[in-house]
């Protein structure tokens, strides 16, 4: 006997991850689809999905900070860079396995987040945004100048994720199975994304998550009802930076080579765009948003040869693929904020309600 959606008789029912049998069936189906994906689609689209999964981890991190705690950050790229270079140093220079460098990257990111936390305690809103913006420039400066670790402006290579003889970027050779690099990496990254999603869900539906949201909604009121604002703000920064650094480490490992320019302000803006497009203050929205922002440039690349006004030479004046991409990106940000502030998650929720309450949908 299923009750109507949204009607709960106990609190733990309401916050449960899987509320009913339908949820469980959908989840099982999703798992099957995810496992089948690398064998069903070609490398080009698989690479889109791998980028999506990695970006989604970073976007979830930003959403925990900006969407749930209300602390605006334009410094996400800095933490991604921190993670990538940690991976490069620990995995490349010291030759440690992925089981060490991936968590280490996250922890280092979290520590950096804790250092930024106090700024968030002292500053509000836009002043905080500008300080985190400064962080991006500071990061580019550090990444260019700490040559022994980062390789300077030319950048450096980042190792594949390995444990002993097992190379997750090349499961084919390690296990003797017919997997190429894209398939291997997809199978490596998706479980990490799943862990990231479940962990984020658990945070936001438990005490710290409620505290984050209370701070977002009304900081002074939150402190009055007993939320330790300072502690939870710093915690939100640490958590968000942990996610970002893990995403950065994975991203570096996937693209194999990073430069300081890989972590510039535009990357931060892309992550903010992901949570805006996906849905601010939702975990699954971050994943939608990441997919959307990763997918659009690839689609434009595919479609642009068919468009007569796009200049294929890609130099000088005129509309190039890059120009078109950027304009679409900018328009998307503006469009979503103006027309659909709840993002794709909001559209999804409306659609679901529409069909659930059909034929009485009004």
């Amino acid at each position: 006997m299923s009750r109507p959606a949204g009607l709960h008789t106990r609190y733990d029912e309401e916050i449960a991850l899987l509320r009913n049998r339908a949820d469980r069936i959908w989840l099982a189906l999703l798992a099957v689809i995810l496992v089948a994906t690398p064998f069903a689609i070609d490398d080009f689209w698989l690479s889109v999905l791998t980028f999506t999964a990695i970006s989604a981890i970073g976007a979830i991190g930003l959403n925990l900070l900006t969407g749930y705690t209300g602390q605006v950050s334009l410094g996400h790229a800095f933490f991604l860079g921190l993670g990538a270079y940690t991976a490069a140093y620990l995995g490349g220079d010291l030759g440690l396995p992925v089981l060490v460098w991936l968590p280490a990257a996250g922890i280092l990111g979290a520590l950096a987040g804790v250092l930024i936390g106090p700024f968030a305690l002292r500053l509000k809103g836009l002043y905080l945004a500008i300080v985190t913006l400064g962080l991006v420039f500071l990061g580019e400066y550090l990444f260019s100048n700490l040559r022994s670790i980062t390789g300077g402006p030319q950048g450096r290579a980042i190792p594949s994720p390995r444990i002993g003889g097992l190379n997750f970027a090349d499961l084919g050779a390690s296990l003797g199975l017919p997997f190429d690099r894209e398939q291997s990496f997809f199978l490596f990254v998706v479980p990490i994304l799943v862990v990231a999603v479940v962990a984020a869900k658990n945070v936001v539906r438990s005490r710290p998550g409620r505290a984050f949201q209370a701070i977002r909604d009304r900081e002074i009121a939150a402190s009055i009802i007993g939320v330790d604002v300072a502690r939870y703000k710093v915690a939100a920064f640490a958590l968000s930076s942990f996610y970002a650094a893990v995403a950065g480490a994975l991203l570096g490992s996937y693209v194999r080579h990073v430069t300081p320019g890989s972590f510039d302000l535009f990357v931060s803006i892309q992550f903010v765009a992901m949570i805006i497009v996906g849905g601010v203050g939702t975990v699954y929205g971050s994943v939608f948003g990441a997919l959307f922002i990763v997918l659009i440039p690839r689609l434009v690349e595919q479609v642009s040869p068919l468009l007569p006004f796009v200049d294929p030479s890609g130099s000088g004046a005129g509309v190039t693929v890059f120009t078109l991409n950027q304009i679409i990106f900018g328009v998307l940000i503006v469009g979503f904020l103006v027309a659909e502030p709840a993002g794709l998650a909001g559209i999804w929720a409306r659609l679901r309600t529409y069909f659930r309450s059909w034929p009485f949908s009004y």
Partner: protein
Amino acid sequence: MTDLLQLTVQGLALGAVYALVALGFVVIYKATAVINFAHGELMLLGAYLVYALQAEAGLPFAVALPAAMGLMALVGFGIERAILRRMVGRPTFSVVMITIGLAIVLRQMVTAAFGFDSRLLGDPWGSSQFALADVRLNVVSVATMAASAILFALFFVFFRTSRAGVAMRATAFDQEAALAVGIPVHRVYAWSWMIAGATATVAGVFLAAFPSSLSPSLGFAAFRAFPAAIVGGLDSPGGAIVGGLAIGVIEVLVQAYQPLLLPALGTSVHVVTAYVLMIAVLMVRPYGLFGTKEVERV
């Protein structure tokens, strides 16, 4: 000693440009409580309009500049009408992100129209210099300082005495209360975006004048001027001037002396110095040197 003096004067000249840019941030912030990330791109567009009116339409500079300012005021009005008007009452950060989206679109429109080649703006000052005692000074630097001073004076009078200026301050202070006492908030926003467009044109022209030239990378200069606006306090025109000049001088001095005194710090230190300084100032005074402290209530 002459070196130091020369560098300081150069710093002040750079600072005057930063102050001009920062004034643009202040105008928008004072009325709408939003940092306009598209300001750099408005400057870019304004400067290219001046270039186009001169080089392509053949107007003299003295006509091209006011004409471009007028056109940019219209652009500002259009942006406000088409997009930002729908955002009244929405969270500040959403509006900020919209300006970021606008910045991206505007920059691409400029590069699509004019390409990436750098051009000479064709301002009347060119590269002429004059000497004051031992210190050489570009004429354009003096013009920049004069322009900042004039704009500052205009803003000061405008915000203190005019009805529109007071309405802008009231709107920034509390949108709802402003609406309640009959201030036409929509119109206030339109005014401030028009002013921002015109101011951006002036800043863009001086930024693109000697010694640099007009190229799409000009838009990024806004990021260099952010610390100036913040150090001074986002809602203080006087702060923009002080912050701009201070950041300019410090940047030039660091650029000149850091390779000699502290080579271990590596390259492009002067770019981050401004941000480090900004963060230090904010730690002591969270609303900048001359900014108004926001009062919070539950």
